[in-house]
């Protein structure tokens, strides 16, 4: 039914588990994403970028920083042997 069975072994326990601190960081980012405080604010940052857009660009940067941290400290240990039979 499925494709050819591979000899490749990956310990199931090596999958990403979500530490509480990462979960909190994601939730904080999602709450910050709903920025009611800049909803009708038309001020320009650097004289050209509406503050609402600038704020959300910062959310994107913050997301990258958070994921960098997550891959460094919350990444599953990879003890798999590579080079499956496929």
């Amino acid at each position, binding site marked *: 039914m499925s*494709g050819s069975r591979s000899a490749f072994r990956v310990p199931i326990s090596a999958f990403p588990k979500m530490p509480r601190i990462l979960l909190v960081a994601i939730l904080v980012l999602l709450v910050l994403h709903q920025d009611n405080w800049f909803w009708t604010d038309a001020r320009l940052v650097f004289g050209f970028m509406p503050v*609402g857009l600038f704020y959300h660009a910062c959310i994107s*940067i913050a997301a990258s920083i958070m994921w960098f941290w997550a891959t460094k400290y919350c*990444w*599953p240990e990879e003890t798999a042997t590579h080079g499956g039979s496929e």
Partner: protein
Amino acid sequence: MTQLWIISGYLGLLLLLGLFANRLFSGTKSDYQLASHSIGPFLLLMSLFGTTMTAFALVGSSGEAYKEGIGVYGMLASSSGIIHSLCFFLIGVKVWSLARKHGYTTQIQYFRERLESDNLGLLLFPLLVGLVIPYLLIGVLSSGIVVQNMTAGAFPDFAAFATKTPATHGGVPPWIGSLVVCLVVMCYVFLGGMRGTAWANAFQTVVFMILGVVTFCVVANKLGGKESLWENLQTLGEAIPHDKATRADMSKTKFFSYLLIPLSVGMFPHLFQHWLTAKSAKTFKLPVIAHPVFIMIVWVPCVLVGVWATTNLIPLKPPLPKIPGTDVVNANAILPFLVKTQTSDLLGGLLTAGILAAIMSSLDSQFLCLGTMFSTDIINHYRKEPLSDRQQVQTTRLFIVGIVALTYLLSLSNYRSVFALAVWCFSGFSALFPLIFAAVYWKRLTKAGAYACVLAVTGVWGYLFYLSGYGANRTYSLSFSLGENTYQVMPVAAIFLASLVAMVGVSLVTRPPKPGTLEKFFAD
């Protein structure tokens, strides 16, 4: 005419890339469909990013910003930066491991074994294909529009290329532009399989990211009319109308419910296939980290260009392109129109190549994925004697040709309604997200729960789609009252809730999966 030559040269380059990938093709099914699991971090980042950034991201984002203002970035881009990476982290790495362990190539193979149900594949197959095809159509139609806008004036005396709108007169008609793009994508996918697709995606992603930033600067300098880029940016910024520089006209609850849309990447069958190409679990790290910033690099300039088009700094001549037969500005043509009218022929040609690159880098993965699904989940699955590797490659290729032909023929119908389908497609995939998440993390998910989930999505999605006039009402949303206030949410919120409740409820009252199955998928 310069643009036409540059576009032709770019498409030729992609064909060469496909030919080169074909020279490295080992002839096996795994090599054709999954590049023999050889894709490293950089190529995975570029192919995942290129695949998720569709025509909707470039042409659609500037068009939506023209209509709705800067709020479009928060609605679809910054939320995607958080949630796409979350899906890669939580779902991508896990399904990659399971697929390597059990030899899966498609989502349906995984669901069939995880949920001990052969027929679930038959239920999921038309739903997934049905949701991918409109998504494909958006790309095919956008490419036709872009080519027509950018080649406008190249053949002014050719009667067949004449249009009533000056912005498109004498340009290559959309049916020819779309046909050529379809043929080019088909050729390099046909020849190079997943390796060709990943290379083309990486190449095209670099092209559209660089040229996107260049477009932004050139258009700003032209529209601003001042000496330095900085002064021009400030002039344009000050000219943005208040309603476009804020979200004053946007519902807060609707904005919040848009958070569910990016969950769609967890269920995209073409992304599932891309995940499986990774060399190791560590390969996912770079895509997880860089994806949000890459989205920002592409979307911020597009959104700004879209809101600039609403300012009084836009020259009155030539007028903004209109939807044929109406006086309504064709928002989806805003970006190509500005590129055409505000940049030189040479740069215009290069920038068109950049826009086409974004479109084609999604089309290729989707064509390959549907070909793989037909070949693996239908043809090979129901044969008594499995096809040989070579035969599976041939059937995949055959189906790719068939899907390209079908998509192209569908694209010749009315185009306006298709763009409205984009959010509906994403909504369908998002509403199926609970299924993949539960399959991966919830042992109690049962076969009946999975059926309930798929049927709930089909039923509620279909009903709301009908109420929206089959997508014709592009601002369709659901309203509910709480006290004296009325709140709006996107239809995805209701479909997602129905899917989740049906799946959890039915799973809890039906027999759990066999211990052997749980042992296989949850050994820890």
